C-alpha cells in the first residue's frame, strides 16, 4: 500500500517534471522568475572580471550581476567552469546565463544572444617588466601566449599574419599564460586591455603593458541562448541601462578598472 502510493507519487512527480521540462523550451526568463534563481556560469580565473579571493567569487562581473539580479528580482547562483566548457554548457542547458565576459564577434552573435556591451575588449600585449617590446610591431618573430579558443586568439593570429609571423601558444586559462611568461618561455601574452591593465597594476614588479593596443576595438558582452534566452537578454539589457543611468555602473568600473569608461548603449556593429 505504502509502496504503491510512493510509486504513484514518484511517477506523478516525474510526469510533472517532464511537463516543466518541456515548458522550459519556450522562455528562459519566465522559468527563471518561476524558480526565483538564475544560474550563471563563468570561469573564475579572469581577473578583474571574475576571480576567487579566499575561495569567494569576486570581481567586476560579480558586482555587476548582483545588481542585474536585483533588477530582475531573482537570486543569482554562480558556477565556476573552464572557459572551453562554458559555451557548450549553455547550449545543453547546464545553466541559464554566461556571466563570463564574451568577446562580441559576428560568428558568436549568429549562435548566441548577446547583451549590451559590459566592457572594452580591445586586444593588447603584456610582457615581463624587463621585456624587449617597445611597440606591438616588435612582436614579430616572438613567442606569444594567449588563452585558447578565444576571440583574442583569433585577433592575435590575424595580427601575426599582418606583421609577418608570431609564434602563438594556446593556454587553458590566462593565469597559465602569465605563469609561462614569468618562466621565460613566452615573450608576451595577448589579452583584452582591462585584463592586462589590471594584471600590470596588481603586479607592477613583474609585468608591463605594451601600448598602444594592437587589436581592432571590440567589446565584451554576456551571453544567453539564442531564441529561448532572448527575453532574458532583453530584461538584462533593461537592467544594464538602469544600472548605467543611476551611476552604479561607474562605481563598479572605478572599483575594478580604476577608471570609468563609457560603453555603447546600443549593440555595436560586428
Amino acid at each position, binding site marked *: 500500500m505504502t509502496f504503491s502510493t510512493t510509486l504513484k507519487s514518484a511517477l506523478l512527480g516525474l510526469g510533472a517534471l517532464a511537463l516543466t521540462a518541456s515548458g522550459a523550451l519556450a522562455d528562459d526568463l519566465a522559468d527563471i522568475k518561476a524558480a526565483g534563481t538564475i544560474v550563471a556560469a563563468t570561469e573564475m580565473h579572469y581577473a578583474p572580471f571574475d576571480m576567487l579571493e579566499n575561495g569567494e567569487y569576486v570581481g567586476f562581473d560579480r558586482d555587476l550581476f548582483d545588481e542585474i539580479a536585483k533588477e530582475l528580482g531573482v537570486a543569482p547562483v554562480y558556477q565556476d567552469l573552464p572557459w572551453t566548457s562554458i*559555451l557548450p554548457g549553455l*547550449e545543453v542547458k547546464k545553466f541559464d546565463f554566461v556571466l563570463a565576459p564574451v568577446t562580441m564577434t559576428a*560568428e558568436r552573435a549568429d549562435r548566441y544572444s548577446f547583451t549590451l556591451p559590459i566592457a572594452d575588449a580591445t586586444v593588447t600585449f603584456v610582457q615581463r617588466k624587463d621585456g624587449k617590446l617597445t611597440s606591438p610591431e616588435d612582436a614579430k618573430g616572438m613567442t606569444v601566449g594567449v588563452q585558447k*579558443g578565444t576571440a583574442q586568439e583569433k585577433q592575435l593570429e590575424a595580427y601575426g599574419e599582418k606583421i609577418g609571423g608570431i609564434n602563438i601558444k594556446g593556454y*587553458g586559462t590566462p593565469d597559465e599564460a602569465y605563469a*609561462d611568461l614569468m618562466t621565460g*618561455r613566452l615573450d608576451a601574452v595577448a589579452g583584452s586591455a582591462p585584463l592586462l591593465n589590471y594584471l600590470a597594476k596588481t603586479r607592477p614588479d613583474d609585468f608591463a603593458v605594451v601600448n598602444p593596443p594592437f587589436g581592432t576595438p571590440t567589446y565584451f558582452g554576456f551571453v544567453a541562448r539564442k531564441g529561448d534566452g532572448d527575453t532574458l537578454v532583453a530584461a538584462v539589457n533593461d537592467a544594464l541601462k538602469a544600472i548605467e543611468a543611476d551611476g552604479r555602473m561607474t562605481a563598479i568600473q572605478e572599483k575594478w578598472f580604476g577608471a570609468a569608461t563609457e560603453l555603447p548603449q546600443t549593440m555595436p556593429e560586428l
Partner: protein
Amino acid sequence: MMETLHRYGPDLLTGFGLTLLSWALGTLLGLVLGFVIEIARRFGHNLLGYPIRAYVEFIRGTPFLVQLFVLYYGGPLIGLRLDALPAGILGLTIYGSAYFTEILRAGFDAVPLGQIEAARAIGFRNTTIVSRIMVPVMMVSALPSLVNFAIILTKETVILSMITVPEIMFQTQTMMSETFAFVTPILILALFFWGFVETISRFGRRLERRFTHYLLDRS
C-alpha cells in the same frame, strides 16, 4: 562538414601524430626507467630501497596533472626549462615508471626461486640470470598488466593539452571553440582513442601468445 574537415583535418592529423609520439616515447622510456629502478631495488644496495619507495609512493600518490604542472611551471625555478612536448614526454615517463616498476616487482617476485638458484649453481652471472631466466618467466605473468598500463597511459596523454602540447585533445578543443560544434569533435576523439587502444590490446595479445608459447607447446 567537408569544409570543416578540410579546415581542421591537417591540424587533427598532427594532433594524432603528437599523441602517438608522446604515448610511444612515454611508455617506452617509462618501461625502461621502471625496469632500471626495479633492478636497482633488487640487486642494488639496501639503502636504495628507501628513496625508491618514496619515489614510487609519491608518483602514485599524486595526480598526473599536478606532476605535470610542477614539472612545467615549477621546473624553471630550479633551472629546468623544458618546452611543452619534452616536458610532457618526461612527465609521462616519470608517471609510467612508478607503475611499471611495481608491475615488474610483482612479476619478478613470481619467478620460482628454484630456477634462480639453479642458474646460480651452474655459474650464471646476475645479468644472464635476469635476461635468460627472470625476464622471460616474469613476462608470462606481468605482460597483461604491462599492456593494461600502457593502455591507461594512452588516455593520460590528453592531459598534455593542459601544458600547451598541441596533441589531439588540444586540436579538438580548438576546433570546438571555433566551430561551436561540440559533440561531433568529441565523438571523433573518442573513436580515435578506441581504435588506438584496440590496436594496442591486439598487439598485446599477440605478444602474450609469444611469451607463453612454450607453455602451450607442452600441454
